[in-house]
């Protein structure tokens, strides 16, 4: 077989960092192979993929060198973040932009655009639709459509479904399965379950970016599962494994009387229209509520409303006190945004976490101790000097959660706090939250992960079209830890 990518002794280092991120990495990928890159969050998967796509160093100037570097002529790249990969405002213009680059004659464009949209299942979307009005899943499928238009030799996918609901995830992967022909495919993904049918070869990295295993899929699954486990990587059966080694106990449903939160005829508005509403709800101490529902169901909207970040109407009480609209609730409620970048106000990871402690006027030595402790727990200690934007996707996510849980507010609103995380960090985070819950904190958390709902939640809200259509208590939580 003929190699399509061949890297010998690749070295790469971010400006101003002490450590080489990639040190003498060798990688050969052959034409038509379907490869999965696995590794703990922050090990350099996205960075390596950008090198493979030629984005580093062509568009992003990162110091790197390689003894030998053979890259494909044309690659299609789907980025981790759905928001920053479009350069035109409308669906048709976005694909046309690619066709223009390839000098496709104008008369052929319209047909081709329709064709590519059909291939990714976007045929029911009118051609001249604003990209901003698409749902997350539709956006990622559009990204794939415009990549198809490139007709690349190699497809590079960086967690294309991290922000999608289970349905959207399934659709995107089956879209990819459908369109795959003899192209080469390289995927970065934390959860293997979705992609296992698609791939043939798995490359596993460790925390420091070294290649641990590079074998056919079957061999990795048959022989190397303990290795994946020890590096905190998701693998099929990780939940069962995790649960079996924990002491199981029945859930202790909260007994304390007096509701923490009461909502009645509560409506949340965007642009003067109701986007989420609640008829009547009470939340008690020690509850862990998970909010589920498809993309665009209004989950984030509801939480933003509960934080008074969007206009609301109706009755809303916290600790028996009526909430005045638009009031600053930051002392009572901690919030984690869906997009972690929305959260950051400081210029370094350390300052970001220290920020709210400083606001409270804590002493600097106390702050330092507290912050470092928390950063270590979230595997961020080595990155404390970085700007929050320089972190990897998973690290950003963890940082945003860390900033929120530090201040000991008694209510936590979390918008998808576990997406893009490896298994080790996911469990760390969940256990931390469970500890908080035990201590009496109320947790309301949006997630697309059914396993989290089953195993950690005490209650589940199912949202559809802006309404909570199902409100069930999870009486038999499978995992509760001492």
């Amino acid at each position, binding site marked *: 077989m003929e190699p399509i990518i061949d890297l010998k002794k690749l070295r790469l280092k971010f400006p101003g960092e002490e450590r080489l991120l990639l040190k003498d990495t060798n990688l050969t990928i052959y034409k038509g192979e379907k490869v999965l890159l696995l590794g703990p969050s922050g090990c350099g998967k996205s960075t390596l993929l950008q090198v493979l796509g030629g984005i580093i160093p062509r568009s992003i100037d990162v110091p790197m060198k390689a003894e030998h570097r053979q890259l494909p002529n044309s690659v299609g790249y789907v980025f981790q973040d759905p928001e920053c990969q479009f350069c035109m405002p409308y669906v048709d213009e976005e694909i046309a932009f690619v066709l223009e*680059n390839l000098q496709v004659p104008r008369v052929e464009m319209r047909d081709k655009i329709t064709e590519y949209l059909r291939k990714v299942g976007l045929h029911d979307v009118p051609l001249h639709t604003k990209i901003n009005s698409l749902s997350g899943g539709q956006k990622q499928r559009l990204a794939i459509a415009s990549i198809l238009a490139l007709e690349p030799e190699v497809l590079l996918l960086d967690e294309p479904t991290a922000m999608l609901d289970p349905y959207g995830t399934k659709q995107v992967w089956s879209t990819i399965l459908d369109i795959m022909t003899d192209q080469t495919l390289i995927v970065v993904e934390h959860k293997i379950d979705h992609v296992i049918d698609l791939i043939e070869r798995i490359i596993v990295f460790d925390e420091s970016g070294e290649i641990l295993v590079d074998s056919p899929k079957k061999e990795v699954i048959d022989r190397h599962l303990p290795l994946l486990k020890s590096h905190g990587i998701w693998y099929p059966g990780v939940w069962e494994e995790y649960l079996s080694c924990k002491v199981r106990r029945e859930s202790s449903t909260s007994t304390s009387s007096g509701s923490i939160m009461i909502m009645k005829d509560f409506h949340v508005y965007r642009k003067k229209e109701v986007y989420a509403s609640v008829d009547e709800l009470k939340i008690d101490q020690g509850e862990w509520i998970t909010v589920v529902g498809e993309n665009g169901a209004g989950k984030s909207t509801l939480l933003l409303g509960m934080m008074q970040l969007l206009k609301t109407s109706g009755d809303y009480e916290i600790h028996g006190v009526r909430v005045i609209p638009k009031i600053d609730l930051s002392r009572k409620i901690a919030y984690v945004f869906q997009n972690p970048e929305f959260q950051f106000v400081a210029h370094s990871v350390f300052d970001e976490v220290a920020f709210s402690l400083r606001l409270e006027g804590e002493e600097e030595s106390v702050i330092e101790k507290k912050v470092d402790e928390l950063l270590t727990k979230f595997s961020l200690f080595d990155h404390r000097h970085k700007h929050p934007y320089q972190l990897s996707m998973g690290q950003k996510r963890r940082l945003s959660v860390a900033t929120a849980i530090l201040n000991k507010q008694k209510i936590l609103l979390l918008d998808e706090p576990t997406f893009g995380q490896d298994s080790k960090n996911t469990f760390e985070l969940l256990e931390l939250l469970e500890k908080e819950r035990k201590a009496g904190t109320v947790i309301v958390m949006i997630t697309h992960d059914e396993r989290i709902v089953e195993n950690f939640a005490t209650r589940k809200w199912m949202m559809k079209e802006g309404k909570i259509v199902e409100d069930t208590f999870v009486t038999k939580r499978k995992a509760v830890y001492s």
Partner: protein
Amino acid sequence: MNAMKETWMYHINPTFKLFVMLVVFILILLIHNPNTLLNVTMLLFLLFLLFNGHSLKVVLLLLLPFLLIFVSTSSSMIMFGKGDTTWVKWGLIHITEESFFRGIHIGLRALAFGLLGLLFSLTTKPVNLFYSLMQQARLSPKYAYSFLAGYRLIPIMLEEFQVIHRAMKVRGVGRQKGWSGIVNKLKAYTIPLLSQSIRRAFRIGVAMEAKQFTTNAKRTYYYKIGFSKRDLYFVCVISLILTSAYILSTHFPYVPIQDVRYETTLTL
């Protein structure tokens, strides 16, 4: 958006429209006779009112600054300009007949320029303008697409402002009080807004290059912007405005002044 009607002016080739307007701009600079200029301004105003295609409410709102600019541009020349025929003298202020008309003339000129520009921007879609500039004026796609991306980012930046506002609220930034609180707040908004737009621009650049956008290669165009009969109409209308303004002003002047400059070496 408000009720908008696409008049024929929307379908003039944008590059051509810009070119013609530039010529008119230069011609207006060469007019020193306030009579002619007044006619030109009035006729342009008529053209503007008839064909801008937007609702009256929007137009009035946009025209408001024009009054201001007329007053502000003319006033200092009226009060402090050179001249011999004194009307008022009061301290530093010295209004003469010459300075008065020169001031009015400058004000009218500013008005005419403004009308022309507003007519252009109201009747031209940026997408068409930049596609046309690439096709007719050989503007490098590197610049054209950057402009388009920039325009797309304006509403996104407004949203960004909200996002920053929310982050501040959630993190309790607003709790600081007093002067340092205000300064902090101002900094807390402008700096992230700018740095965010830089990051966003950078990411879009990366995405564009990942889609094989190369700056010097040839390319085809999704939107073809050509020429039409309307371009001809446009030249005719503009010529008509200029000539009739000139002829009217020579035959029916409003004021007996031919040239507002202080020391004119008469060339005509």
